[in-house]
Each structure stands twice: as structure tokens, then as C-alpha cells.
């Protein structure tokens, strides 16, 4: 039992609800929401070290022994993600202070933001299939509202597509829950794992596994990412950044959880399919990123590439591959928030996202430009920046099991990442400076700090990889040994 596990979910929830009661007091809203995120982060840090010392932490909610109640399970993988979520949320929140506008602040932006975090953190921590669905719905509903925050034409249009796609995927999720419950009679992930291990993963269970793959692919943007480019390019910057950092990652997390803990018996079927999906995703994402001259489009398609890349690590199911995925996942959450914030700032300054109309920003905004450049290099995986280890290990993982095509596509995709990001950099920051100070549509005042903070985290992740390595190795180890998870939950 470890009640701390619930805190990253409960604190934002309580604070969010309290903030609903006081909608007009903006100072209070800002302070409390920042506090909630920071507190969750610190608690998560604490949990992380407990896991390192004592193994996987669990909390049986309500005191009901698993599998009958709902279990909260903090293994290293999920806790790492929770911590990263808190970091990213913290920075995006600070960015939002200056950029989101008082109108939105009074229209419950902060509570909704906190609910999003509740949902994301909860999805990472829960050890129950149906509870996962509920957490998905929590963050989905929050994201529905956040996407349409502002109520513009494009926002409403894209949020409709986003919402309907997700309604379909939620229905699929429940189909899956029903099938699985019918076959196994349980909902607890650990219990599911042990039951399926006991009975063997037959064709029907594999089919259900693939159903879950579709569900989470829809969330993760793995191949079925049609909703993603539209919905990530319409909301206000801070929201787009948090979406880019978190939403797909929840889906990725779920894929990892399902296919390392429960459906790991038929890798030559399931994992191969995942690998193919990942490869196609990377190719399509790379094409999308290369093809457009639009800040937001380039960035969103980069999100898609990274989804494919991270999942490629899972395919290998080797220690190197999983470790790489975890590194890259953490890196990607931070770096995507970073580049989205910078991209949003560019749009704020110039009033357009069309790269052909932007030029020479670096003269007046050198810090922004260089931070973007470092971010871009980090995405490509240039050592010693944060993406490097992930890239190397994922590639190594795919090579180890002989999926050279997958690793190769991954590396080629990073060339496209480079191309698209440098294209963005060269068009937006280099070239003749065409905007004077007066002509700029907004100011970067107060916006640089959160971006810099994220950059520092990213750099620390890369340069100080040794510091986090123990955690990542532990996480990979736990993913590779489902028995650790099962034992911790079911005792």
C-alpha cells in the first residue's frame, strides 16, 4: 500500500474542482494550478525513489485486494511518464499565464488543464483495464473542451473530427473490454496477464489484442493519426503544446503496457504488426513533415514520426529497444512541448504559420532561434542531446531481432525530421529580417522563460543521462519481466 500513488491524480483533481468554485480570481487560479502540478511532480519524484528501493509500488483503492478492487500500480515506466507529464505541464502552464488570454482564463482554462493532467496521470498509473477507459475519458473530455477553447471556426471544425474519432475509439475500447471480460472474467491488468499466461494466448485473444492495438493506435496516432494534424494545429499554443507532449503518449503508454504485460506471448504476430504500423507511420509522418511549408503542419507531422519511432522500440522487446523507447518517450514529451511552444511563439510574432511569409526572426529573437535549433537537433538525435540515446537504442533493438527495415526506416525518418525542422529554422529564423519591432503581432515577454525551462530539462536529460539511467534501466527491466508487475499487484 502506498497512498502517495494516488496523489498525482487527486491533487490536480481537487485543485481543479476548487478552482471551479472561484472562477473569477485569476491570481488564485494561476497560483493553485501551478502548485498542484508542482506538488504532483515532487510526490512523483518521491515515488520514483521508493520504486528504486523497494520495487513496484501498488495501491489497492478502497483496500480491496486485487483483482477485485481497482489497483493503482506505480512501476518505473509509468512513474517516469507521470514525472515528465508534470514537468511539461508545469512549463506549459507558465507559458499559458501570458499567452492564453484573460477571457479563457476566466472560462475555466485552469481547471480544464488540471483535469487533462488528472486523466493523463491516471492513465499512466492505473492497473485496471476499465479504469484506464475512465481515465481516458477524463482526459479526452478535457481535451475536447480545450481544443475548442476560443470557439473559432477552425477550432470547432477540427474538434468535431477529433471528438467523433475518439468516440469511435472509445466504443472500440469498450468492445475490447467486453470481449476480454467474456473470455477471462477479469479486468485487473496483472490478473489478466496471469490468466492469459495460464490459459495461453490463443487466436481469439490475439485478435482482441489487435483490437486494443487499434484502440490505442487511434489515441497514439499510430497509423490512424488522421485526427491529429488538424486538432493539434487549431488550439491556443499552450494547449497545442501540452497536447503534442501528452495525448499521443498516453496511447503509446497503453500500447506498451498491453503488449509487454498482457499480450506478449505471440510477438511474431502482434509485435510484427505493430512494427509494420510503426514503419508506415514513420513514412507517412516523414512525408507530411517534408511536404509542407507551414509551421504547425511540420511540427504536427513530426509528432507522428516520433510516435512510430517510439513504438518501434517496443517491437524489439529487447532491453535495448525498450530502454531506447523509454528514453525517447521522455525526451519526446519534453521536446515536443518545447518546439510547439516555440512554433506558437513564432506564429504569435508573425501572425501567420505560412513559412513563406516568415523570415529572419533570429535578428530580433536570437534566444528563440537557438532554442529551436537545439530542440530540432535533439529531435534528430544528435548527441549529446536528449534524443540520442533513444535513437541509438531503439535502432539497436530493432537490429537485434533482425528487423533491419524498421530500424532503417527509423533512421531515415530522422533525416526527414532534420530536413523539416531545419527547413523551418532556415525559413523562419534565417534570411532577411522583414519584421520590425513595431510590426510584430505580439511580444515574447514572459514566454521565453518556460521555453528555456523545457530546454534545460531536455539538455539535462541528454547530458545527465547517467542520472536517469538507473530509472530507465529499471523501467525496461520491469517491462521485460511481467512477473514483477504481477507479483507486486497480486502478491
Amino acid at each position, binding site marked *: 500500500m502506498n497512498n502517495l500513488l494516488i496523489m498525482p491524480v487527486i491533487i490536480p483533481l481537487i485543485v481543479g474542482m476548487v478552482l471551479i468554485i472561484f472562477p473569477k480570481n485569476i491570481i488564485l487560479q494561476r497560483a493553485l494550478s501551478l502548485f498542484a502540478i508542482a506538488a504532483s511532480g515532487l510526490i512523483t519524484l518521491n515515488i520514483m525513489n521508493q520504486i528504486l528501493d523497494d520495487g513496484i509500488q501498488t495501491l489497492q483503492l478502497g483496500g480491496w485486494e486485487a483483482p477485485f478492487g481497482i489497483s493503482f500500480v506505480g512501476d518505473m515506466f509509468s512513474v517516469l511518464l507521470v514525472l515528465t507529464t508534470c514537468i511539461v505541464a508545469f512549463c506549459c502552464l507558465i507559458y499559458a499565464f501570458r499567452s492564453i488570454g484573460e477571457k479563457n482564463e476566466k472560462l475555466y482554462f485552469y481547471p480544464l488543464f488540471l483535469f487533462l493532467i488528472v486523466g493523463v496521470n491516471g492513465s499512466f498509473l492505473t492497473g485496471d483495464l476499465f479504469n484506464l477507459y475512465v481515465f481516458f475519458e477524463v482526459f479526452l473530455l478535457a481535451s475536447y473542451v480545450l481544443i475548442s477553447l476560443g470557439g473559432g471556426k477552425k477550432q470547432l471544425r477540427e474538434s468535431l473530427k477529433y471528438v467523433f474519432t475518439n468516440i469511435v475509439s472509445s466504443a472500440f475500447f469498450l468492445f475490447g473490454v467486453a470481449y476480454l471480460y467474456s*473470455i477471462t472474467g477479469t479486468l485487473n491488468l496483472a490478473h489478466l496477464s496471469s490468466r492469459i499466461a495460464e490459459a495461453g494466448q490463443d487466436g481469439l485473444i490475439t485478435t482482441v489484442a*489487435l483490437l486494443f492495438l487499434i484502440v490505442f493506435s487511434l489515441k497514439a496516432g499510430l497509423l490512424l493519426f488522421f485526427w491529429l494534424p488538424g486538432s493539434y494545429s487549431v488550439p491556443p499554443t499552450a494547449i497545442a503544446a501540452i497536447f503534442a507532449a501528452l495525448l499521443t503518449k498516453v496511447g503509446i503508454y497503453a500500447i506498451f503496457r498491453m503488449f509487454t504485460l498482457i499480450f506478449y506471448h505471440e510477438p511474431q504476430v502482434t509485435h510484427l504488426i505493430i512494427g509494420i504500423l510503426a514503419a508506415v507511420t514513420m513514412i507517412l509522418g516523414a512525408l507530411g513533415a517534408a511536404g509542407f511549408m507551414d509551421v504547425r503542419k511540420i511540427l504536427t507531422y513530426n509528432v507522428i514520426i516520433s510516435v512510430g519511432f517510439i513504438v518501434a522500440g517496443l517491437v524489439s522487446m529487447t532491453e535495448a529497444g525498450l530502454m531506447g523507447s523509454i528514453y525517447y518517450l521522455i525526451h519526446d514529451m519534453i521536446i515536443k512541448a518545447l518546439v510547439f511552444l516555440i512554433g506558437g511563439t513564432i506564429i504569435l510574432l508573425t501572425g501567420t504559420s505560412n513559412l513563406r511569409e516568415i523570415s529572419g526572426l533570429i535578428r530580433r529573437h536570437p534566444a528563440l532561434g537557438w532554442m529551436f535549433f537545439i530542440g530540432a537537433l535533439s529531435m534528430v538525435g544528435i548527441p549529446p542531446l536528449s534524443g540520442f540515446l533513444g535513437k541509438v537504442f531503439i535502432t539497436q533493438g530493432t537490429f537485434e531481432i533482425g528487423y533491419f527495415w524498421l530500424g532503417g526506416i527509423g533512421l531515415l525518418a530522422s533525416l526527414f525530421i532534420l530536413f523539416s525542422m531545419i527547413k523551418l529554422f532556415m525559413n523562419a529564423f534565417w534570411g532577411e529580417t522583414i519584421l520590425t519591432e513595431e510590426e510584430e503581432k505580439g511580444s515574447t515577454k514572459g514566454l521565453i522563460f518556460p521555453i528555456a525551462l523545457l530546454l534545460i530539462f531536455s539538455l539535462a536529460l541528454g547530458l545527465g543521462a547517467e542520472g536517469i539511467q538507473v530509472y530507465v534501466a529499471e523501467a525496461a527491466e520491469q517491462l521485460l519481466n511481467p512477473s514483477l508487475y504481477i507479483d507486486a499487484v497480486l502478491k
Partner: protein
Amino acid sequence: MNSFYIILFLPFLFAIIVPFLFKYINKRIHTGWFVLFVPLTIFLYLLQYIPIVAKGDTREYILPWIPSLNINITTYIDGLGLLFGLLISGVGTLVILYSIYYLSKEREELHNFYIYLLMFMGAMLGLVFSDHILILYGFWELTSISSFLLIGYWFERKNSRYGALKSLLITVFGGLAMLAGFIMLILMAETYSIREMIANVGEITNHSLFITALVLVLLGAFTKSAQFPFSIWLPDAMEAPTPVSAYLHSATMVKAGIYLVARLTPIFAGSASWFWLVAGVGIVTLFYGSFNAIRQTDLKALLAFSTISQLGLVMSLLGIGSLAVYFGQSENGILFSAATFAAIFHLFNHSTFKGSLFMVVGIVDHETGTRDIRRLGGLMHVMPITFTIAVIGAFSMAGLPPFNGFLSKEMFFAGVNDVANAGVFGLEQFGLLFPIIAWVASVFTFVYCMILVFKTFTGKFRPEKLTRKVHEAPFGMLVSPIILGLIVVLVFFFPNVLGEYILIPALAAVLPMMQINASDFHISAWHGVNLELWMTIGVVVVGILLYKTLKGWVKLFNNYPYRLTLNHFYDQSLAGTEQFSQNVTNRYMTGSLRQYLVYIFAFFVLLLMGSFITLYGFQFDFSKFAPIELFDIAIVIGIVLAAFVVLFTSHRITAIVTLGAIGYFVSMFFVLFQAPDLGLTQFVVETVTTVLFLLCFYHLPKLKKNIGKISFKLTNLIISLAMGATVTILALAAFGHKVFEPISYFFEKSYELAGAKNIVNAILVDFRGFDTMLEISVLAIAGLGVYVLIRQGSRRREQSNETK
């Protein structure tokens, strides 16, 4: 931390303080003077290793980075690394000295320039001293990036940006291929250390991935060293300031590929593919570069192509030298080690003469304002010192005595002649190609060297074509090229000092399996009248002839269609990729929700039915199913009927009424299935939902008839039928495939455990109370969302009213 690491990281550390120097001190003192201290220190520091290395010793240091993953900055100082280290720091010193005069402290953003340059220097040093293969890769990419930044230094210029992107894309592409190769190497040797790989070379050569890894690694080396066909980035890289060209694109960065090939020779050499790839690509590049150099009118472009060609020369020598590994410790082995030795020697020589030539061109550019040969001429009298240096550099490049180029060129001819007689790897048939191509390329080399010197410095001086008043460069600018020119001459006269202390240890590092006997590699300017000498004489004679008749035949180049050039290919493929990507993406990302859903549903059906049929087959077990009663059928008919009405009606009240009916029937099902709580909830929710629908109808338009084309409808029909079938089939299979007892038996003790007689309620508030808690949160969020959506709308309208 060892003092060596302080030296290694000195450039990076210093780069941090450069902006401050620039900001506060630059007004009085050129920032370059401070930066100069960095390479100088490094150079002097590295000098102390010469005696150690010359004795055959090596040094290694470890700086932990991620020790638990075995990723540490392990450095290894041997002859090869030291040679490069000295070149980097030595030429670096001279280049920075030169740049102080070349770049104005008032007009340029010097801090950026020096940061990039220092970053590059640090990366290059790290590259040549790294033993850890991933660290090596890291520094490798860092050189590409700093090169990108340096080429794009004048980022307002379109050409700069173009060249920068080109170089970055090509070198990083190579870098990524190389990374793949490295990872394969790591998997094969199970170590990150290059030395350990060399020690376990047997495991690698017998591995099935050997050839793949070899090709991939070479791809990296070739792109970096601008080998054919990846050479196209180098001419465009000349957009960088001249000191940069002198440094990166002649002396150091482009040699990284050479370094890599030399470094990995012990691992890969000895195989036919290595020989043919390295030597073949090298010799082709040699020819291609020299051939193209002739037609250039821009001095820097000419030098760029000459660099390509010279790098090809070194590369081909390394390839030839790899035969030594094949032959082992034998006479042939020693013969071919000499080729490797020549490669190292020429590499050094090239750095000196090419560095000086670039600086000369820079001076010309700086003083006259142009680099176009057609506008230049007769500068000899105005700039005598510059002219002298140019002559030294160019003649050395052309392979004439008494300059160091002559020595290595002779050794090169010896090498290609030996290859013709090697008699392995299919050289029996094609061996003769090597000397022939080499000789022809040398003729071209001779010609462009002459063009370089004589078109610029002799002939008629035409000041009217120049924008500036021309005079000799300031002394400071001349110091660096003079020093390099002196080295060029000195090495010719005392080659063996260099040979003994630096080249032979380097050779030993490249070919560790060979017994290197210093006496075998004695360099002498005069080695009798032999084939090589005759070849050189031939080169000079034919070269002079060609130069004299240049005007007559150089026009032939213009007939070569641009469409067939590699550059055109690059531009086309880049534009093509963008266009293709855009087309593909726009093709499936149509923005139509229906299409997205069609994709999703189709994927759902195909994947699940595919796996269900192939993996499970149609096994259904209906034995445990409950019996069907008449009343059930009534409800079923009701639901189906109502559902069809919802589908076909074009009357929204009807749709809602029938939807409500479906809800009522479903809740009737819940009654039949003994779920009172569900029945209650379903009923209430259905009613409230109906009210909601009605409320929204005020704002929503009426239903239209189902419109659309037949094909549209047909697709929808097929997809939806398939969806329904999939869900049903899976449901039937799953319902009949109950493997385990459900866990709900536990909840039947709810009264003892939770004090509740209603099991469902006990589950909701107690056993799974957390779900419920979140579910009301979801409700709360939805309520909030509805409120926010509507408020936004009303505010929007208020605003628009105000503006009216």
C-alpha cells in the same frame, strides 16, 4: 578529470565565454585574438605526445558520461589521432589568425562565427581521439552541424542557406547510415570500443552483417569526405567565409571521412568489397573532381573541386593500402602498406598546400572583391607575396618538385602501379584502369593548378573590372599562408623528420597487424628513373599542352547538359520529395471526417477479421448460451425496427422518438437480464438525453434526406455491414469462449464486506468507487465544457454586436 579532457573540451568551454568577450571587449580588441589562444594551447599541448607516440606508445583516458551503459568518453591517443589532432589545432591556429584580418570586427557577428568555429574544432578533436564508437558518432554529427552553421554564417544570402542545407542533408544522411553501420558493429563485436573491435575482428568478419555494416559505414565516410557522388555539397559549401573553407572544407572536416576509413581499416580491410569501394570510389572521385575543376570560373569553386579530387586520391590510396591487410606480413604486404603511408603523407601535404591556397584565394577575394577568374589577371605585380604563396601551393598540388606534393604524388603513382599487378579481387582484369585513370586525373590536376596561378596572377591586369583599389594584403593576413607555404617547402627537403615522428606512428595505427619497419618507409625525393617519374614527366608535358590549348577545348564542357549533373539531380529530388510528400499527404489527409472513419473502420475490419480467421478460425461454442423466449424476440424486433427507422427517417422528431424507443427497449433488456440499477439508469439517462436532443434541435437544422452518390452510399453500406459482422462474429466467439470464472463471485459477499445488499451499488461506491469518482469528474468536465462552449459563443456575439 585528466588534463587532456580540459584540452579536449577547451573549445567548448571557451565558446561559452565568447559572446561576453564579443559584447564587452570587441570594440577595442578583435575577438579573434582571444580565440586564437585556444588552438594554440591545444597544439602546444599535443606536441608533448609526439615523442610518446613516436616510441610506439599510446595513451588512453576515460571520462565517464553514462558509465552504467558503458557510454563513456574514452579517448585514445595514437599516431593517427595525433596527426589529425596536430593538423586540426595547427591549421586552426593559422586560420583563426587569418580570420582576424579577414573578418571585420565592426561589421561581422564575430561571436557567432567563433562559437561555431570553436564548436567545430572541439568536435573534430573529439572525433579523432574518441575510442568509443558512439561518442565518435556524436562528434561526427557535431562537425556536420557546426559546418552547417558556418556555411550559413551569412544567413541573409540565399546561396548560403542553400549550401548549408545541402551539406547538412548529405552529411547527416551519411552520418545516419554510418550510425546504422556502427550499431551493427556494436552488435557484432558486443563492444563500443573501436580497439576492442579491432582485437575481436574475427567475430566481425565472419558475421552475416559484415558487408552491410561495411557499406553503411563507408556511406558515412564518403558523404563526409565528399566522394563521388556525394561530392556535390562541397562546392556549395564555399558560401562560407574563406577562413572556414580553408579550415573545414580543405584541411579538417572533409578529412573526417578519410580518418574514419583509416581508423576502421583494421576491421574491414582485407575484403574485396572494401577494396573496391574505397579504392574505386576514390579513384572515380579523383577523376571527377579534377575534370570538373577545370571548367570553374570561381576560384573557390575550383579549389572545392580540387579538394574533392585530392580527397579521392587519398581515399583511393587508402583502398589500395587495404590490400596490405589481405596480403599480411609479406613482401606484397609491405608494398601496399606503402600506399597507406602515402595516403597519410598526402593527407598532411594536402592540408598544407590547400590551406595556403584557400587563404590566397581569400586574400584575392578580400582585396579585389571578386573571385571570378574572368575578371582577374595580372595580380602578380600588385601582390607579389600572395603570388609566391600561390605558386608554392599550386605547384605542390600539381605534384611538382621541390614541393611536398611531388613526394606524395610519386608515391601515389607507385601505389596505382602496384595495384595493376596485385592480381587479386578481380584486379587481373581491371587493375590497369587504376594507373590510367590516375594519370589522366593528374593531367587535369596539373591543368587546373596552372589555371589557378596563371589566370589570376599573370596576364593583363584589368582594374576596371574590379570594384576596389587593389594592393597587397596586410601582413597579418599573409602570416598564415606564408607559414603553410614554408611547411610545404620544408617537408620536401626534410620529409623524414615528419615521417619518423608522425607519419610512421600514424601508419602503425592504421595497420596494427603489420610490423612497421621504419626503414621500409623512407621518403626520398629522388628514387631513380622509374615509371613513376616518367608518368610525372608525362603529366607535365601533356598538361602544359592542354593548358596552352585551353581556350580551344574548355568550351566542350558547356555542351554537357545541366540536366544530367548531380546537382540538378539533388535539386530535383529535393523538390520532387517535397512535391511528392505534399501530394501523398493531401491525398489521404482530406479533412473529411467520413473518409477518416472509413479508413479506421476498414482497418478495424481487415485487421481483426484477418487475424481472427487466420489465427482462430470459425470456432463457436453455443452450448452454454441461454434459451430464447418469446418476449425477448418482441424486444429484439422492437429494437431492430426502431433502429431502421432512425436510419431511414428524414424527420428528426421521428429519429429522436425512435431513438428513445431503442433506449427504452434496451433498458427492458436490462430488466430481462436482471439488472434493475441499469434499467433505472438507462431510463433516466435516455429521457434526459432526449430532452437534450430536443433542446439542441432549436439550434440545429432539420434533417435532410440521405443525400450523396450511389457509390458513396454503397461504400458506407459495405463498411458498416462489415463492421457489424466483425463485431458480431467476435462477440459470438468471445461469448462461447469463457475460459475463466469471472471475478464477480467476490462481490456477492458485499454485505459482509461493504455493508450493502445491493451488489451493483456496492461495486459502484465501494469496490470500484474510484471509477465512480472519475465518472462524476467526467460529468463535471462535460458540464463545464458545455458551459464554456456556449459562453464563448455568446461573448463572440456580444463582441460582434459592439463592433456593429
